[in-house]
């Protein structure tokens, strides 16, 4: 796995300058959304579906925006670290509540929390209400790249964050706590009667997932240069679930592949049919569920097995 991750990072660094600006934008957003989907994958392995992961995406984005506007901090790495920290803190607190719930209750409670944040931002003039806020152009380690290279620089930063997170999650999945996911999904009673705390394991996974979403949110904010309450809206959470199902839970790389494909389908569908693009996305998801119920990654898994 480390060699595959390294090759992906190298491909972005070497191939990035060859890509047009729009493709670099899609690639960077794919890394941002892939980070959120990576966290959802962790939860999904334990049988939990969060319908409100946009909560932490939004917290990460507004943290990055707040840093840039209030403290003039535009360094993309600092913004991602801050986004991760605030999201992790919020998830640590909310996790005590959410770790008690399973199934539809977990899903809807997470949705409710994200909609509360949405409502708070909409009502807050200081946070830009429904219009949101603009963010200054990003810097990297104090250097502001020439405008033609900004997208490339942010894409490389995104690749470092995404690939780094994928490696860390891969390592986590090899630990006894990381391996508990499918066991919790299958049989919580047995897990508890073998001496592990299911609630603790879910809490840890929830905080990790939120941290990843926070990084993704900060990355999206600095890439787009704008933040608004839609980032916490339920449809945004829906997109993340879409990506996770599209990708499958077979590998830590799958969420990024899913996010890239989602971005490509979204862009193409919007370009070809601006009024019915949702139909194209829906059709794509339907086809994946029917023909590849384990997600796109199962194609690679099957090939490797064959």
């Amino acid at each position, binding site marked *: 796995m480390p060699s595959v991750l390294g090759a992906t990072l190298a491909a972005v660094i070497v191939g990035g300058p060859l890509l047009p600006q729009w493709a670099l934008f899609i690639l960077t957003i794919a890394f941002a959304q892939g980070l959120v989907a990576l966290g959802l994958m962790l939860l999904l392995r334990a049988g939990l579906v969060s319908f409100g992961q946009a909560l932490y995406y939004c917290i990460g984005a507004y943290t990055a925006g707040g840093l840039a506007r209030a403290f003039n901090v535009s360094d993309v790495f600092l913004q991602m670290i801050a986004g991760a920290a605030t999201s992790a803190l919020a998830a640590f607190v909310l996790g005590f509540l959410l770790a008690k719930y399973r199934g539809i209750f977990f899903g809807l409670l997470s949705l409710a929390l994200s909609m509360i944040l949405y409502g708070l931002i909409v009502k807050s003039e200081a946070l830009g209400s429904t219009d949101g806020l603009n963010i200054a152009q990003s810097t990297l380690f104090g250097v502001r790249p020439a405008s033609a290279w900004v997208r490339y620089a942010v894409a490389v930063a995104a690749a470092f964050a995404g690939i780094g997170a994928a490696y860390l999650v891969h*390592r*986590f999945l*090899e*630990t*006894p*706590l990381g*391996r*508990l996911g*499918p*066991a919790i*999904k*299958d*049989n919580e*009673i*047995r*897990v*508890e*009667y*073998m*001496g*592990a*705390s299911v609630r603790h394991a879910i809490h840890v996974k929830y905080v990790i997932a939120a941290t990843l979403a926070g990084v993704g949110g900060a990355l999206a904010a600095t890439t787009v240069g704008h933040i608004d309450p839609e980032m916490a809206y339920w449809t945004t959470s829906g997109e993340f679930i879409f990506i996770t199902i599209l990708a499958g839970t077979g590998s830590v790389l799958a969420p990024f592949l899913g996010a890239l494909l989602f971005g490509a389908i979204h862009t193409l569908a919007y370009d070809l049919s601006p009024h019915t693009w949702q139909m194209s996305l829906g059709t794509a998801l339907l086809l994946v569920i029917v023909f590849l119920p384990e997600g796109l990654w199962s194609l690679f898994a099957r090939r490797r097995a064959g």
Partner: protein
Amino acid sequence: MAVILDARGVNKSFGAVTAAAEINAAIEADSVVGLIGTNGAGKTTFINMITGYLKPDSGSIHYEGRDITALAPRQITRLGILRSFQVPQLYSSLNVRENMLIALGIMLHNAGRGGFFSRSRARPNVPGHDAPAEEVAERILERFGLAEYREKNAQVLPGGVRKLLDIALTLAAKPRVLLLDEPTSGVSAEEKFAIMEMVMKAMKAEGVTVIFVEHDMEVVSRFAERVLAFYDGRIIADAPPEVALGDPDVRRYVVGGELRRMDERAARA
């Protein structure tokens, strides 16, 4: 022998139904105790109270002198009291080897080994087993005759094998006391004794105190060293099997029909 588990004046009711009435039982270390009684007599409630699934209304349960009455199941497990279930509780989407590795992984996690900051290639020894998880898993699977099923999904295993795996998982946690809830229920007559022989041999070798719930009196008289007979939430007999099964109250309220059938089978033989 020293008392390892001690129930003192334990009571439990579910509404008007009394599931445990003044239960007093001191279980000695390394002993094998059979719990008998008709359905609803209070055997499983007793096991559920020892393992923390149910809390007694009054009374207390002590393990090696420590009061464990208020502890959660996982805390009781960590002390060394393990259980198997009437309906095997397995990780059905995982194969037999993975089931075992999850159990051993929990041991590693509780001991703070194999965590995120361990070297990625490190294979720490499982506490109490002094070998890495993969080796211990193979060892336990061999011991229970499960090695041939190692790659089989738990969902598709035959009934007897599921029972064995359910019990084998507990060995991963190095139990001091093992509670078996009807280990031979749903298992064919031919498999019953084979399963019990295998389990008892493994537990004896590990020095585990075994408490098992059983309806088959042939199994009880062959494997139990001591019998606790339950009736209506009370213990009506506490003696070696040859004495307990001959007790008039036990014959009348608990095992009359079963013993008659045993006698008839013996006469025919």
